[in-house]
């Protein structure tokens, strides 16, 4: 399943968003335009459905409604999220889920749902607040989505949100997970437990994936061979590879000796191979050589194809990379442009902007047609 459409009201720096989404979505915009905040909507929905999560936790993890609500929002406005889910990009919507959230204006300043609605196809199957909610307002502090006893009629939605993956792998965290103690972040977005996740995967699946990754790395990091996972004497999982040099046997290297680029590429490829639900990627181009970055869109397209179902896995990513967006196979309909203004950030599909459409028709790549609109100059005068 994919998220085929999203509307937002007062979510972080967006006052109002209303866009279609396809199999691949490229988010572009200047720094601080809200690319990560856009991705965060999907993580928020995941945090609601996650075991041990829920609406109240998802909100408090983000610092409460005042942090979530758009600063440009007018008074008395709630935060609203509505997503449509479809089997594939070309199919009709199969589910629609919508919530509104607000904070009490006085008293304990608790957070309540203003509504929660679910449609299966065109038929509405949930419409809160209902009678029970009117009688007991406390019920509105929780969504039906997060409750197994209540979400059975739309379990598909909660399963979908629950399996959303987000990756913004930080090589230092992979190398030194024990240097950053603490409870960890839900969903492990920065890869602190990446090695454990690899180790927990079923043996044949894990080996097949590592083989595939080694194959893909052959061009990027040619001296790296035989990528495997091992456990050291204390049971801590590691990645190991043979580093080929002039000695016939080469030398073994572990992840703490891998370069940033190698680790990020391994993490990225693993994430692409892992699962079939929505994958969110934050600037996948980081630390990678331009020759590899320019191949990422095609690589994603290739790995999105699911073997069994013939459906495609959805990938939404943020990027600043001209190399990545130079791929002529990226269509304007796959690109969302985020443009900040006094009324919050606006989000538009690139091909819906006439001027960009004309440039693309004229043979310009997305990098040429779109990126100049996102460039901001920094004044260096202050540093003189």
């Amino acid at each position, binding site marked *: 399943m994919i998220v085929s459409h999203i509307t937002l009201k007062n979510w972080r720096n967006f006052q109002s968003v209303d866009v279609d989404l396809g199999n*691949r979505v490229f988010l572009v915009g200047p720094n601080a335009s809200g690319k990560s905040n856009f991705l965060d909507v999907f993580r928020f929905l995941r945090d609601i459905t996650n075991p041990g999560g829920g609406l109240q936790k998802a909100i408090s993890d983000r610092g409460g409604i005042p942090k979530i609500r758009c600063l440009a929002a007018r008074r008395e406005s709630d935060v609203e999220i509505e997503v449509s889910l479809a089997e594939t990009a070309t199919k009709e919507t199969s589910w629609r889920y919508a919530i509104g959230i607000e904070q009490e204006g006085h008293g304990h300043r608790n957070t309540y749902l203003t509504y929660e609605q679910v449609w299966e196809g065109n038929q509405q199957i949930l419409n809160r607040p209902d009678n029970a909610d009117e009688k007991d307002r406390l019920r509105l502090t929780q969504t039906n989505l997060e409750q197994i006893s209540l979400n059975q009629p739309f379990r598909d939605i909660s399963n979908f949100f629950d399996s959303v993956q987000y990756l913004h792998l930080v090589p230092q965290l992979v190398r030194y997970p024990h240097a950053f103690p603490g409870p960890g972040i839900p969903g492990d977005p920065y890869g602190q437990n990446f090695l454990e996740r690899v180790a927990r995967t079923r043996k044949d699946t894990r080996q097949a994936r590592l083989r595939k990754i080694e194959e893909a790395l052959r061009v990027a990091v040619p001296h790296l061979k035989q990528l495997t996972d091992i456990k050291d004497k204390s049971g801590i999982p590691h990645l190991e590879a043979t580093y080929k040099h002039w000695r016939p046997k080469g030398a073994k290297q572990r992840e703490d000796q891998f370069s940033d680029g190698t680790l990020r590429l391994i993490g990225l490829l693993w994430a692409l191979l892992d699962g079939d639900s929505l994958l969110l990627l934050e600037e996948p181009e980081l630390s990678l050589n331009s020759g590899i970055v320019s191949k990422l*869109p*095609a690589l994603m*397209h*290739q790995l999105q*194809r699911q073997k069994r179902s013939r459906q495609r896995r959805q990938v939404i990513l943020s990027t600043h990379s001209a190399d990545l967006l*130079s*791929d*002529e*196979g*990226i*269509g*304007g*309909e*796959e690109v969302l442009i985020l443009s900040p203004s006094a009324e919050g950030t606006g989000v538009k599909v690139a*091909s819906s902007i006439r001027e960009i*459409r004309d440039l*693309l*028709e004229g*043979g310009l*790549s997305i990098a040429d047609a779109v990126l100049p609109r996102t460039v901001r100059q920094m004044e260096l005068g202050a540093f003189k």
Partner: protein
Amino acid sequence: MSLSIPINLAVEDDLSEAVLTKMLPARYDVGVCYKKGGFGYLKKKIRGFNDASNSMPFLVLTDLDMGECAPVLIEEWLPVPVHHNLLFRVTVREVESWVLADHDRFAKFLGIRKTLVPVNVDTIDDPKEYLINLARGSRSRDLREDIVPAKGSTAKQGPGYNDRLVSFVREFWDPCEAMRNSPSLARTIRAVENFQPEWDH
């Protein structure tokens, strides 16, 4: 037996690089490939490549596209004398026509009848569009999805276009077969076969 000839390439895209690499006889030893998306970069840097040919031979390949003819393009890009070690070649009209020129293998690759590919590929006005239209008739859904842009997309090629064609060229494409159907490819292959670098001493 002659010594191997070191050479740098300068091309518009991955597909051109794959074609040149496959086409070069074994006595060539390819160093660096200069490529930054499109002909603009080549046109801007061609004088630099020409100067650098003093110390290292260069093979530059660009598409004629809708230009008049190759000599006019070369004259316009490089109004100074072309260095002996600079092989400046032009495809008529795009490198895709050279790919199509190996009829049999290309038809087999797509799973289409080979009579659908014209005999002299240099006469096709827009070879890339032609190639994509041929791919629409392919029996393989994966190939179609990779090469042909999605319906309603502004993209001019499918998301796996480069990948698919580059791997076709690497694995199957036969330049000797292809040169029979493309005079511009034949001229390039002969130029490369007869080339002997001249070194300043």
